[in-house]
């Protein structure tokens, strides 16, 4: 079953939204709840955190590392759209975060593939990888 934003949310969409809300609220371990043990995460860009992470520990660490780049309590995420069904979720949101003198304000795409209720593969893509790389590098 596929739902559209505003007409009723699929459980996978709700799970994604809750995880991203909790993450941006300070629970940086939240993503570990939805990833499978053998998950793979593809992060776009050309920085020290780009590329693939394999396994729940490493993928979960990526989210913690990303949060650690931002100044305390500076991360906010504003949902734009969520597309979801039994096997896939695509979550588009506006992410804002400060890193010293640099302020990030971009749309991010997170695409997740689910098996048995857990994310087995994910893609992270910011709308501008150049701006993302610049922010990450500090």
């Amino acid at each position, binding site marked *: 079953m*596929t739902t*559209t*934003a*505003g007409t009723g949310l699929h459980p996978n969409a709700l799970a994604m939204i809750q995880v991203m809300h909790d993450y941006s609220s300070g629970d940086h371990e939240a993503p570990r709840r939805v990833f499978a043990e053998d998950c*793979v995460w*593809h992060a*776009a860009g*050309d920085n020290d955190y780009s*590329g693939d992470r394999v396994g729940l520990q490493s993928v979960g660490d990526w989210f913690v590392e990303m949060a650690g780049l931002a100044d305390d309590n500076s991360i906010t995420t504003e949902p*734009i*759209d*969520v*597309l*979801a*069904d039994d*096997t*896939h979720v*695509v979550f*588009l949101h506006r992410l804002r975060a400060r890193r010293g003198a640099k302020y990030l304000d971009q749309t991010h*795409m997170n*695409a997740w*593939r689910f098996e048995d209720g857990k994310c087995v*593969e994910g*893609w*992270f*893509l910011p*709308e501008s*990888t150049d701006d993302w790389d610049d922010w990450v590098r500090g």
Partner: protein
Amino acid sequence: MEHVGVTRARSYLSTFASGDTEGLKDYFADDVVWHVGGKHQLSGDYRGRDALFDYFAKVRDLTGGSLTVEEEHVLASDQHTAMFTRVRGDLDGRHLDVSMAQTFRTGPDGRWVEYFAMADDQKAVDAFWGAS
């Protein structure tokens, strides 16, 4: 019931597979922006339908028309369409075979106004297309 965006996406993939380049134009707004990520000769933003179709022509020329895009999964809302696809092609003896997560932003008339995408192996994509 299938969302109209899913139907449209599948029609697009079918039109692409048929080689009907003119037929693809109906899917895109005049002011479409197409973002190509990575670090290769085709990376960058293509603004406007003419620029986009020049890009499509270059892709076709470079690959000898060998590039294929196979649906793995499609989702849609009223504002966006997401496609998970398998993309394969050949260029100068190199073979591409990657999974891509693609998102199209939908305009008020149903045509796509913006596109961005990411492969599961961006290094393979960069190596395939090569530097400018």
